[in-house]
């Protein structure tokens, strides 16, 4: 493929990764490249381990095989202090926002600054207000997390993720459970932050429309394998039945509607004993 990502320019490189949970193979020898300055999306149905992939990139989980290289560092070979230093340059937006519930919005955004810098309080205030302004929630600084809507919580979490000016942000299902207006706001934010701050973004999502609108490159994953990759346009025109089913949301196809079961008629006529 002509426009496939060249490894030289990639910020994050996943090489021959395998990972299992119990007996279930989540990833089976997959390789992905995430280019600097671009928005790369990972799509696939629920339960394909998209969040697991982000945790592997962040060094919270260990792969069985393969390596993950972030900005030239093999994440799983780093010492703890080196990993923590790398994480300061990686932002992550959790699905729930993961705001600290006993702190106000302001303190949540100030949290990484207070933990990692010795800046005076006046400067922290300025920085926090700037980050909150970027996500449009400067006026909500005194609210507590339980007073926020889901979309607002995610925007605050995004402000917190960019507090230390990271080189990249990983978004875990940013659009799930959002109303159309919040979705629109998040789509706009992800795109504009990526451009303005020169970030590299990894978006994990199964919201086809929103993701395709902002992604530069898309990987479609199913059952531990990459079933399709390319620009949104290429994905749309993909001939893979699987990718087509996922993009159009057809109920039946390569991914079956029915959970594996024995023959329907036999099942109805059997004695009904539990087995």
């Amino acid at each position, binding site marked *: 493929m002509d426009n496939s990502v060249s490894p030289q320019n990639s910020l994050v490189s996943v090489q021959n990764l395998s990972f299992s949970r119990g007996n279930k193979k989540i990833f089976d020898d997959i390789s992905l490249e995430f280019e600097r300055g671009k928005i790369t999306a990972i799509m696939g149905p629920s339960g394909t381990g998209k969040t697991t992939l982000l*945790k592997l990139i*962040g060094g*919270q989980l260990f792969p069985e095989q393969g390596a993950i290289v972030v900005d030239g560092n093999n994440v799983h070979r780093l010492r703890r202090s080196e990993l*923590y*230093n790398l*994480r*300061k340059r*990686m*932002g*992550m937006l*959790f*699905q*729930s926002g*993961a*705001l*600290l*519930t006993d702190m106000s919005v302001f303190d949540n955004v100030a*949290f*990484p600054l207070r*933990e*990692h810098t010795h800046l005076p309080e006046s400067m922290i205030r300025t920085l926090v207000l700037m980050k909150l302004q970027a996500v449009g929630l400067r006026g909500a600084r005194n609210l507590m997390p339980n007073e926020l809507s889901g979309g607002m919580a995610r925007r605050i*979490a995004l402000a*917190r993720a960019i507090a*230390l000016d990271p080189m990249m942000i990983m978004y875990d299902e940013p659009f799930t459970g959002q109303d159309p207006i919040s979705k629109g706001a998040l789509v706009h934010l992800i795109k504009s932050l990526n451009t303005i701050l020169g970030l590299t973004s990894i978006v994990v999502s199964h919201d086809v429309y929103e993701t395709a609108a902002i992604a530069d490159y898309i990987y479609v994953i199913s059952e531990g394998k990459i079933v399709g990759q390319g620009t949104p346009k290429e994905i749309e025109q993909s001939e893979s039945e699987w990718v087509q089913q996922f993009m159009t949301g057809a109920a039946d196809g390569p991914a079956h509607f029915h959970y594996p079961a024995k023959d329907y008629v036999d099942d109805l006529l059997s004695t009904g004993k539990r087995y």
Partner: protein
Amino acid sequence: MTEFLQQLGKNTRTSFTKLGRGTFFLVQTISGIPSVLPRPRLLLNQMYSVGVLSFLIITISGLFVGMVLGLQGYYTLSDFGAEESLGVMVAASLVRELGPVVSALLFAGRAGSALTAEIGLMKATEQLSGMEMMAVDPIKRIISPRFLAGFLSMPLLAALFSAVGIIGGQLVGSGLLGVDEGAYWSQMQAKLDFHDDIINGVIKSIVFGFVASWIALFEGYDAIPTSEGVSRATTRTVVNSAFSILGLDFILTTLMFGDK
């Protein structure tokens, strides 16, 4: 039979792995304590929620336990004409046993369950993961201050329990039943030994505080991150703490008072 043995083996293995994880967790928690000391604010906040918020339940329970002791002690002692020794009896039971044990049980129910639920919910809502991704070690930032607070609060709460209990015993003994007030206090002063009674009681409460805080924090940290998992972990905290406190109390009592 084989099924039984299989199950037994499986359960034993699960318990030992959990014990291993728990020990590892304890080592991490203790090694995180030095990073709490430069930030006294973190510790003070936790001392408030673990210690100060348990104040009411500890004082009220202490008062009632002391009053009942006064009443029961009086009836037994008066058979022998030894009512004057009521003060010694009340104080010795409280300082040696009831103070550390009952306050530790109350502590496990009030503060321990709250700690487990708090940590478990932080895990379930990805707050701990989020912290790790912000390069903040949740053990140092969240667990160690709570552990230290529980560990320091317990002897203070036990002392409070005993003190209020002794006053309760006096209220009933001399206020209601007519034991001489001077005898109540002076016999206590004469008979109670600082080392044998008070220090041993304090050692007990330090041990209980250590164990109860460890169990509560570990159960929360190790909880399955769902609402069901957190509620089960909270139950386990109270049950396991109670067993450990009572078991350890027997061992400690044997060691401290066994040769008399």
